[in-house]
């Protein structure tokens, strides 16, 4: 079931302009990336390992820094000198591969931490929202459990709820299911699909090609630091244009 593209919205949420990044003089991780994501668009970023896709998604909330080019989020240059980095980050939801829940806090407290300390919400309000979000991801009963007591799939769903608690205009997913046992991948993808259907702007680095087929508006293919293809899932999977994309897809299928 492919999502109908949000054709009406032209507002660019994320924009990459001539972005370049070097880790050292010999190793360039990102080479002249030019792309954007409009409101409501779901982008899946794929490619072989080492292609720079994780690096790229981490530049959006400045977990990685770039040396050249600009990145805009919601119309703002994210490297502007006067930018309040913390405020800026609180407007982007980021979901990590290794969930990164805070083990010393309960599930609900994990979700409430940032709303209380960054947005200044009151505890009761934050708790109410946390419980709502937990219901949404199917974990209402676990509100007072601790991360150590949850399975990987449950932890990742809590991590998604934690990111959503900040009401961000866009969500970034960095290989959200790569660290999960196969039987738990489905429950997390389920949550992500429902988010996409509700119109959330999403950028996902993932190997889950079925997810891409079902929900993505655009697939970006990266290899060796370059953005090589940008196309609809249908075009990308059935008629890949570059040789490297063809090789990548055939490698995937042979598993």
């Amino acid at each position, binding site marked *: 079931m492919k999502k109908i593209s949000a054709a009406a919205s032209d507002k660019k949420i994320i924009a990459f302009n001539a972005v370049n990044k070097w880790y050292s003089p010999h190793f360039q991780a990102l080479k002249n990336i030019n792309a954007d994501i409009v409101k409501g668009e779901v982008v899946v970023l794929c490619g072989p390992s080492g292609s720079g896709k994780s690096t790229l998604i981490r530049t959006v*909330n400045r*977990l990685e820094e770039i040396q050249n080019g600009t990145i805009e989020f919601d119309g703002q240059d994210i490297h502007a000198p006067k930018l309040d980095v*913390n*405020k*800026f*980050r*609180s*407007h*982007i939801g*980021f979901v*990590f591969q*290794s969930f*990164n*829940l*805070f*083990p*010393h806090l309960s599930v609900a407290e994990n979700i409430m*931490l*940032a709303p209380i*300390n*960054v947005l200044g919400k009151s505890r009761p309000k934050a708790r109410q929202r946390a419980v709502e979000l937990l219901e949404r991801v199917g974990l209402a009963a676990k509100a007072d459990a*601790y991360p*150590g*007591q949850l399975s990987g799939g449950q932890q990742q769903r809590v991590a998604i709820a*934690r*990111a959503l608690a*900040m009401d961000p205009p866009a969500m970034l997913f960095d290989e959200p299911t790569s660290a999960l046992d196969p039987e738990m991948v489905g429950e997390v993808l389920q949550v992500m699909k429902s988010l996409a259907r509700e119109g959330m702007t999403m950028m996902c680095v993932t190997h889950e090609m079925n997810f891409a087929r079902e929900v993505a508006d655009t697939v970006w293919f990266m290899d060796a630091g370059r953005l090589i293809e940008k196309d609809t899932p249908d075009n990308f999977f059935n008629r890949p244009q570059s040789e490297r994309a063809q090789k990548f897809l055939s490698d995937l299928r042979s598993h």
Partner: protein
Amino acid sequence: MNAKLDFSILMRPDYLKMVLEGVVTMFELTLLAWILAMVVGTVLAVVRMTNSRIAQGCVATYVEYHQNVPMLVQIFLWYFGVATLLPATWQHWLNANHSEFVFAFIAVGLAMAAYMSEDLRGGIRSIPKSQIEAARALGLSYLKASRLVVLPQAIRIAMPTLVSHTVLLFKNTSLAMTIGVAELTYATREIESQSFRTVEVYLMATALYLSISLLIMTIGAMIERQLRIQAR
């Protein structure tokens, strides 16, 4: 050692008073020094976490100095040395207000802060970078991330060594007797020199020190267990 042990000597009201005052002073000294050590130790640990080379160097120097100079020498340096460098008004106030006690708890507190900060540093280092990334990704500032995510976890991990260093701090307060602080060891010596009942007095003091050390270790173990349940 041919006389029988006679503990009733300790029940004499004037001796009992000296012991009690000694114990109270010892507690006050320990508590104040411990608070100072924990506060300064935490500050040092957080400062060391920053990326500034200068800050890290300062903290490293502080820690190395306090760990490589004997506690007794540090006490002397404060009481005999620093005291003479202070402005006259301060010296007057101190002399009227038990300067030996003040310098003792400052010396012990600041010295043990070095150990506490190293314990916390070990705890902080064992927390994966991803925790900080997750906190920053939510929009928490560096200070808030430290306070809400890093330090609570670091303290849990550092608890065992923090407890053993607390016992050490407690034992170190006995050195204050050398500059005339009337804590337990001082009182013990006083009673011994007056009553000549060395064994009984020493046994009592030893028993007191042992029981309080054990008490500290037990409380530490209880807190550890409590924190661990929460974090699971």
